[in-house]
């Protein structure tokens, strides 16, 4: 142990000397365009390190524990208020930044971050259903695809194991509001889910592939992933459930204990530039909330039905927050019943 500590001190001294010109970004895996990072490194002479996380819960747990060394984190909107509540984020003065005005008006004042005090948009998307239209040609803008599975799709349906999203989709399908604590309704939701499960094939991730190769014919899925699947297999289509679907946004925030605050601010401003925001979208195939970035996007993205929400279905999209603890407990209990 002594050795560890001595080398610890030596290394701490060594790294401190190089601290200038660095930036540590903590982002979802396979989500950051290397071209974007390269461009930023060249423009600002900063050495950027990307570290991956696989879920909001892991990211939050690690950041809360401290000693991680990250400057920037990219939480989903439903987690931003949790970070703020735990006093983990700093206010970098975003409205004063040069590129602030590029944020689309509807993303400037958002529930999870009024007046953009803490965060700037990274990407946003929706959670709906992906359907292989060669197996089913009925209406796909409905959660009935996986909750009252049409005969053609029985045994070929997947549900991504995102508890919060799946529960909220089911609650909305049964006529409730996300994060409801109405127990009678939740009982119906549970019975519905348990009944529907017998028609499912799996509860798994990786739908870009399995929808592409026809292993799975329909799935609760994200729009960007469905988009990627459609590029491989034109039969794949994305549906926005009219009973309610989920809209989410991942946001870039600077941590309170960041070591490289100035570089982090530079990065925030950098990604609000339309040309750079387009680079973000080009990589992961989600929209970004920056005005004028469409111009720089690849042709197939501008009119993609997975990205452009049809007008008549816009109202069905819901931003869900993280549910309160009591509701969370109910959700987990139902989820356990479902998967036991």
């Amino acid at each position: 142990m002594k050795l560890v500590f001595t080398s610890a001190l030596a290394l701490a001294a060594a790294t401190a000397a190089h601290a200038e010109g660095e930036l540590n970004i903590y982002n979802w895996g396979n989500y950051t365009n290397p071209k974007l990072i390269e461009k930023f490194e060249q423009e600002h002479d900063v050495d950027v390190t990307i570290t991956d996380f696989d879920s909001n819960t892991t990211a939050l747990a690690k950041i809360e524990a401290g000693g991680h060394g990250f400057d920037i984190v990219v939480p989903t909107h439903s987690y931003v208020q949790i970070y703020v509540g735990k006093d983990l984020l700093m206010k970098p003065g975003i409205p004063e930044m040069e590129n602030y005005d590029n944020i689309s008006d509807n993303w400037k004042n958002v529930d999870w971050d009024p007046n953009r005090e803490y965060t700037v948009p990274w990407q946003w998307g929706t959670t709906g259903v992906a359907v292989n239209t060669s197996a089913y040609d009925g209406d796909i803008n409905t959660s009935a695809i996986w909750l009252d599975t049409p005969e053609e799709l029985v045994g070929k349906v997947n549900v991504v194991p995102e508890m919060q999203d799946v529960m909220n989709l089911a609650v909305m399908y049964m006529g409730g509001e996300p994060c409801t604590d109405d127990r009678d309704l939740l009982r119906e939701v549970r019975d519905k889910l348990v009944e529907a499960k017998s028609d499912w094939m799996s509860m798994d991730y990786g739908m870009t592939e399995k929808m592409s190769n026809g292993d799975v014919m329909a799935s609760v899925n994200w729009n960007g992933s469905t988009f990627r699947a459609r590029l491989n297999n034109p039969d794949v289509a994305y549906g926005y459930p009219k009973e309610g679907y989920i809209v989410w946004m991942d946001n870039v925030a600077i941590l309170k204990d960041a070591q490289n605050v100035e570089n982090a601010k530079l990065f925030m401003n950098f990604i609000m530039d339309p040309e750079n925001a387009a680079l973000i979208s080009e990589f992961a195939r989600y929209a970004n909330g920056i005005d004028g970035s469409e111009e720089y996007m690849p042709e197939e993205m501008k009119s993609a039905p997975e990205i452009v929400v049809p007008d008549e279905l816009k109202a069905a999209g819901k931003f869900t927050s993280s549910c309160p603890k009591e509701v969370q407990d109910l959700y987990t209990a139902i989820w356990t019943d479902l998967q036991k």
Partner: protein
Amino acid sequence: MSDRTPPRPGPAPEPRRTGTDSGAPAQDRGRGETKGPDRGAPARGRGRAAQARPFNVTTMPGFATVAILAFVLLYVPIVTMVIYSFNASDSVALWGGFSTRWYAIAWENDFVQEATIRSLVIATSAAVIASTLATMAALGTTRRKRFRGQTLIYVMINQPLMVPEIVTAVALLIFFAAIKTATGYTGLAYLILAHSAFCVPFAYLPIRARLEGMDLTLERAAADLYATPFQTFRRITLPLMAPGIAAGAMLSFVISLDDVIITEFVKSAGQDTLPTYMLGQLRRAVTPEVNAISTALLVLTVLLLTAFFLLTRKRG
């Protein structure tokens, strides 16, 4: 030498012969120091009496068939992986024609290369540390009179096996985060420490299995011949337990290479390993680039091993 192939029917030559054949001793080095006692110790004169038998005593019916079949099956998924590393499409599960583009992409991708090297560094360190400490502990806890606390040691050593990874991961996250904040050091040592710790039982159990029942006759004989304890250990005990240590070190190495969850929770900024890199991809889409990296690694391993075997062969 081919006459040693077990399933051979009919009268087989004495099984032990190869060990004393000319040329064979040097090749023995492939197994480290086992050569000394193997040849010198009458107690281990494996099957010397076999000469008289009508069949090879080391043969068990069907064993070779099962073993060969299992070896083949072991490589089926690996061959699949190699094939898909040459996939032209974006997918690890949808064949889109032959292409080497993923090798080009992996070659360009510093992130994944650094992650791979980091994985190997951690796994090598963990294997060395864990098998060294496990060897000492195994010597301490086997082949001696029972002593107070022996069971406690046994339980402590095997403890990392007993809880799912996520639990150790959360515990270490909190413990190490406190140290990281206190010392300001966020280097690779935490990952190596964590990996070494959970590798200890994987090294300890095979070594112990080797030691148990290995009698003390040879060591006593050495001591009778005025060998110092260290000489006895170096020349007798260590060579005898070498296969156990090798097995333990190999297991530790692959266990460390595979670890995802503990690494995910312990890593600091810029410390992604290949598994955590893949875990990050899991939810979205896994690209064949990792197949390309793994194939390259596989080829490198096989080349190194071949070179190693050729070299040791030449020395004889």
